[in-house]
């Protein structure tokens, strides 16, 4: 179990909420963990179980069916999910999409989607990345052209989390292609609209429980009321949501690293070599001491960042620094934890192997480490 005894960002209500999260995961997630990996996706019953227990979108206001809590509750879910070793896409909905709908959506949009996002009946995705456009969103080629009272969307997206399950997708598209980034808008597209097709559930190194997909849009007509917020403001919306997205990734990275460390400790204290436990070797102890030090510092930093974010003070540069450091640390810690397992670490039946696979992408998605450095350097 994730040890939270020395954390400072949480109060007793968070602790009670954490108990609930653990109970739900014990029942609905852990028994299905391997099946979700094999099926390359979690299933709808899991989403509904999370929704029923109040785990989804905890920040959504009560008038839209939510609990109206602070982001600390999202963080609790992020930590427990990552510590469980799952790559389920519920955090994308809670930490990212819900925020877009609630903050920029019209009253109709909020009433239509948020209550069912909270229950898990509606699963969402956000489609930014394209085959030719990653962090450089100016390179987006998907267009949404006006035609009477409608937009006609054409283009393709890739690496979209929740791509297979999603009932609602926020599509980042150019409404004024000549204006570059300033001509970008966020358009809501629902499952079943003609011309909207899902491509492959992509074969990835890790994160096998996440249905990461291609999406195709061919002459997809949606009413202009599907524009989220103001037209041509999409780029600004995307930029202002970055801190929360990056903090969310940092939190999950750190919790996953802690799990790998805990796995390694348990393994080396049990396994014997050359007449003593592996833990008895100085190299093992020093490696673990090094990892424990990094983890301790990391938790202190996360609590700081989390508290700042709840107060609305976390800057994009700070959140980017957090994502950079925690995901890089995750890579180091999990790799070392795997090494301590010896040959067993390379076997998929051990949790550390899955953590290692799943970790590789965190230095890439949500902006690569190199992009994080660019962002941080702009603040200097």
């Amino acid at each position, binding site marked *: 179990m994730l040890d939270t005894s020395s954390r400072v960002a949480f109060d007793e209500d968070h602790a009670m909420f954490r108990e609930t999260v653990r109970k739900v995961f014990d029942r609905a997630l852990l028994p299905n963990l391997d099946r979700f990996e094999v099926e390359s996706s979690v299933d709808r019953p899991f989403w509904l179980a999370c929704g029923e227990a109040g785990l989804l979108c905890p920040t959504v206001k009560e008038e839209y069916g939510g609990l109206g809590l602070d982001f600390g509750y999202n963080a609790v879910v992020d930590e427990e999910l990552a510590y469980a070793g799952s790559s389920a896409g519920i955090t994308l909905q809670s930490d990212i999409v819900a925020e877009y709908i609630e903050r920029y959506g019209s009253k109709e949009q909020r009433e239509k989607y948020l209550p069912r996002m909270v229950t898990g009946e509606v699963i969402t995705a956000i489609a930014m990345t394209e085959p030719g456009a990653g962090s450089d969103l100016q390179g987006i080629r998907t267009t949404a052209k006006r035609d009477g009272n409608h937009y006609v969307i054409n283009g393709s997206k890739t690496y979209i989390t929740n791509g297979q399950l999603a009932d609602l997708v926020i599509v980042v598209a150019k409404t004024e292609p000549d204006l570059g980034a300033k001509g970008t808008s966020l358009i809501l597209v629902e499952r079943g609209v003609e011309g909207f097709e899902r491509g492959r559930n992509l074969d990835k190194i890790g994160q096998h429980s996440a249905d990461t997909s291609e999406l195709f849009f061919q002459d997809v007509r949606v009413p202009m009321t599907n524009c989220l917020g103001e037209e041509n403001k999409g780029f600004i919306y995307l930029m202002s949501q970055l801190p929360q997205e990056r903090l969310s990734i940092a939190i999950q990275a750190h919790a996953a690293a802690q799990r790998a460390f805990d796995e390694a400790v348990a393994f080396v204290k049990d396994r014997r070599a050359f007449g003593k436990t592996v833990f008895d*070797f*100085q*190299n093992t102890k*020093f490696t673990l001491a090094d990892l424990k030090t990094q983890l301790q510092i990391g938790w202190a930093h996360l609590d700081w960042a989390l508290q700042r974010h709840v107060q609305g003070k976390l800057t994009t540069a700070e959140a980017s620094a957090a994502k950079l450091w925690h995901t890089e640390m995750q890579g180091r810690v999990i790799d070392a934890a795997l090494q301590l397992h010896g040959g067993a670490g390379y076997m998929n039946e051990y949790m550390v192997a899955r953590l290692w696979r799943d970790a590789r992408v965190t230095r890439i998605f949500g902006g690569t480490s190199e992009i994080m450095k660019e962002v941080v350097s702009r603040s200097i």
Partner: protein
Amino acid sequence: MNFDLSDEQKMLAEQMRGLLGKRATPQRLRSLIDAGQEWDEPLWRELGELGFLGAAVPDVYGGLGLSELDLGVISEELGRVNAAVPFFSSVVLAADAIGLAGTQAQKARYLPGIASGETVATFAYAEGSAGWSDPAVHAVLEDGRLTGTKSPVADAGVAGLAVVLAKAGGRLALAVVELEQPGVLRTKLESFDQLRAHYSLRFENAAATPLEGAAAARVMPMLMDRAAVQAAFEGVGGAEACLHMARDYAAGRKIFGRSLDSYQAIKHKLADILVGVELARSSAYYAGWAAVTGAEDLPTSASAARLMAIDAFERAARENIQVHGGIGYTFDANCHFYYRRERTLALSLGGRERWADRLIAHMPGRQGQGNARGREAA
């Protein structure tokens, strides 16, 4: 291809090691520092008499006519003991500059003295933090007269002669300058390596002899590559000395009831240093071979050897102190000699960045791309 040293080179190494093991001890280095000496003059004379200083100088100019690899063997042994002699300045840089850029008559005039050790020369290339790329050089050579300031210049306190990088008619030029003349002002710079003192040299209308055998702009990159190879050998020697010091100390020191070297953390540390030293040595050998044969890949192999040696020596010098613990931080232990020399060596000839740029600019496939080459210092 045989990558090992020849029997003659192994003998040369043994001979050097035997001599330096007796003459260039840590006690000797301490007594030089205590006496305020900048070099070990008796050792220099002895090395000259035995022919080591002229090893790579052609025999027609009073040297032994051996190869750059032989010179590397000597550099490695000097690095191993941290010797207080201006070998790198005089033999590696100045003699090679004259050899590459001088006319036959100029070589005949200067090289025999350097080869015998009677003349100590140095090479004045940098101009402060601006460095020594073409736009950074402001010293002016006109009608056999030199005006300008070069700094830092190693060993300029004990040198009688300097090869100076300057501009003549707007182009890079090399000239030989006698340092004992009214137009030359030497100012010693405070630095942390007392046994390789650095100076600022101010020239005011000083008499200078332009080297006219080859264009300086063409000579400089090759000269620096060849010097980088020797610096790599020197670094390898120093790094290996640190490894052996750390090993010997750990073997003799008892802690918590057993010897320090029985701890896994120490063993792994020593193994890491050794890996670095071996990789750096192999790179230096290859670059030495490229210097001997004039191979096309001298720029890449010299840069690689330089980078590997900087890294290996840096790690070895630092970890040697760490293995020693508190005593390693004191003046009484000998770790600091290598720690200082490592920094001096790493920052001479342009630091890591300069050589990383050069390596990238000359990587196979990059040759046609003028931009990358244009960016690096000449």
